[in-house]
């Protein structure tokens, strides 16, 4: 598709915030992240659930906030980053 683009577009980035102790480990955010940037943590939170954590390469979040919308526990949210820090 590059020939359509005059200027190179950089995909948006998001910072993932997790309020670990609110998580009940339903896995919605992990399963339905379109970029698959989340995985289940091996650690327990204070209530005995496994909250999500980022996969190794955390650059992949595009800040779509679907995780934040689908989370039943208000335990995850995204802040969009203005510029890429390449």
């Amino acid at each position, binding site marked *: 598709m590059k020939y359509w683009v005059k200027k190179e577009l950089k995909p948006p980035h998001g910072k993932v915030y997790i309020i670990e102790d609110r998580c009940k480990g339903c896995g919605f955010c992990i399963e339905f992240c379109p970029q698959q940037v989340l995985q289940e943590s091996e650690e327990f939170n204070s209530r005995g659930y496994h909250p999500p954590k*980022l996969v190794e390469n*955390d650059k992949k979040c595009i800040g779509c906030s679907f995780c934040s919308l689908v989370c039943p526990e208000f335990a995850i949210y995204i802040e969009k980053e203005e510029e890429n820090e390449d």
Partner: protein
Amino acid sequence: MEIEGEHHPLDEYLRADRIPHIWCPGCGLGTVLNGFLHALEETDIDLKNLAIVSGIGCTGRIAGYINVDSYHTTHGRAIPFATGLKLANPKLKVVVISGDGDLFAIGGNHFIHAARRNIDMTVICVNNYNYGMTGGQLGPTTPLESKTTTTPYGNIEHPFNLCHVAHASGAVYVARWTALHARRMKDSIKEALNKKGFSFVEIIASCPTTYGRRNKMPTGLDTMKYYKEKSVIKHGIEPEKADIEIGGEIIVGKFVDIEKPTFNEEVEKLIRRFHK
């Protein structure tokens, strides 16, 4: 590394001192509450004039988590309570959020009559196919053949198609989504909130603890994957063609969006006759 979050952007809309909520892991109710608050964030509604009314059941607890004037009423009677609230103070934006059993079994009569009168309110029904709080009994939307604690051999009752009921009763806005359609659900709720008259949004949501595990979907995630596999978006379809059957496709979308005078407008007209 992910960052330790402290203050969720929606916390200002929540009674954050009551979070975590009582709902089970994998329950879709939190997602609906989340979608509702995101929708609210995108409207111009003055929170001071927003009132949430709910009935009894798991969904009935939703009112208690939203940091606005909120009323947790009796089983089935959220809509008439909300009717009184709205008619007494027309400035209020009144939203009823309750479950399928509360709104369509014990409260079914109130639903059809409020829709018929076109009372200016938004009704959001979280349909999880069963009575969750009492342990998973047959509800008015339980699909045929489903197992519940009171249909141990499979459900032999025909369920309601809630959107069809809403449409047939006169609702001016009717939409259905599943909890998986988080963004579209949010958009529909926003449209409903901005709509004048009786607007209705049905959200099909997981109940792993009492419905799912008896029906081969033991986790909320299983149910969400099922929604992903079975849902088909058909905007504008006649709601009567959107029945829900076990294993069949789940038709979602915006089905109805019409205009007609509301009860509140008619009342105001009547009062103006005496107060010119």
